[in-house]
């Protein structure tokens, strides 16, 4: 019944794997609040570390400041440590489920999509998460950027089967 579709998005594979990123256990409204709290922590950090600053992105791509390289580099270092710790100590999710690590298979989208995202990144000074923080920090006009980012996501979904992968 399910038609085979091109499935190159690592996130989809995660979603379709058993349990995956989505918890298979039921979560109610209040259970989801903890994600909002973690989100708020992210929002504060995004603003205070100036990761969402258009100026910092310009500096990064004009090789005038180490700021963003330092942020991304230390995030990778912490990420590596976390991945190592999760594997080593078999850390479970809050619902007590295993945390699966899925390999990200290579496809051409990482080249084309990556380049396109890079262009947009330098224009807007944000990747998807920080867009929300830009809005929250007082730039209401970024709602327009967010709307078009959603549109871009939708268009990708619409034409996914026609794009080279």
């Amino acid at each position, binding site marked *: 019944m399910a038609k085979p579709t091109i499935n190159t998005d690592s996130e989809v594979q995660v979603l379709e794997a058993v349990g995956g*990123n989505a918890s298979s256990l039921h979560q109610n409204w209040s259970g989801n609040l903890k994600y*909002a709290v973690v*989100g708020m922590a992210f929002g504060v950090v*995004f603003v205070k570390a100036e990761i969402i600053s258009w100026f910092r992105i310009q*500096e990064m791509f004009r090789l005038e400041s180490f700021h963003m390289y330092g942020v991304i580099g230390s*995030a990778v270092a912490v*990420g590596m440590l976390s991945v190592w710790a999760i594997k080593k100590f078999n850390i479970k999710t809050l619902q007590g489920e295993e945390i699966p690590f899925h390999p990200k298979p290579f496809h051409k989208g990482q080249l084309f999509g990556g380049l396109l995202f890079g262009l947009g990144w330098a224009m807007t000074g944000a990747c998807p998460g920080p867009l929300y923080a830009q809005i929250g920090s007082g730039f209401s006009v970024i709602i327009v950027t967010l709307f078009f980012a959603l*549109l871009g996501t939708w268009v990708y979904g*619409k034409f996914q089967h026609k794009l080279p992968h």
Partner: protein
Amino acid sequence: MRHICAAVLPSGIPYFQYNWKKEIWNLYFVGGITLGAVLAAVLLANPNPVVVTPGVLNYLASFGITDTNGLMPSQPFNWSELLTLRGALLMPVGGFLVGFGTRYAGGCTSGHSIMGLSMLQWPSLVATCCFMAGGFIMTNFILPFILAL
């Protein structure tokens, strides 16, 4: 992103046909990011102008962008400039590229550059290099023309 699309734009596209309700925590998360940014901007505000390297300052000033009071310059990024050519290119087109590009690449700076590299995935390294290449191309070769509009 994708979850909002799945939730609000039911369109019979296979890519969006999955149980988005299971992923609802994402929406709480981005809601939290927005609130956190409001908190940081209101309660923890930095009263001083954002520190920008002199090179970038001079470069931006040559396009009439001199406002460093916020994290973004209000000159191209405000509602009235949305209707100018410069604003219409930067925000809608930039936003579209961000949305389309991240989904096409299968992840963004956090998914590929931070998590992917942490897990030593070479496709993520490829994606990260492409993000950076796109950014360098835009900033150094295309943006000067857009900002001059």
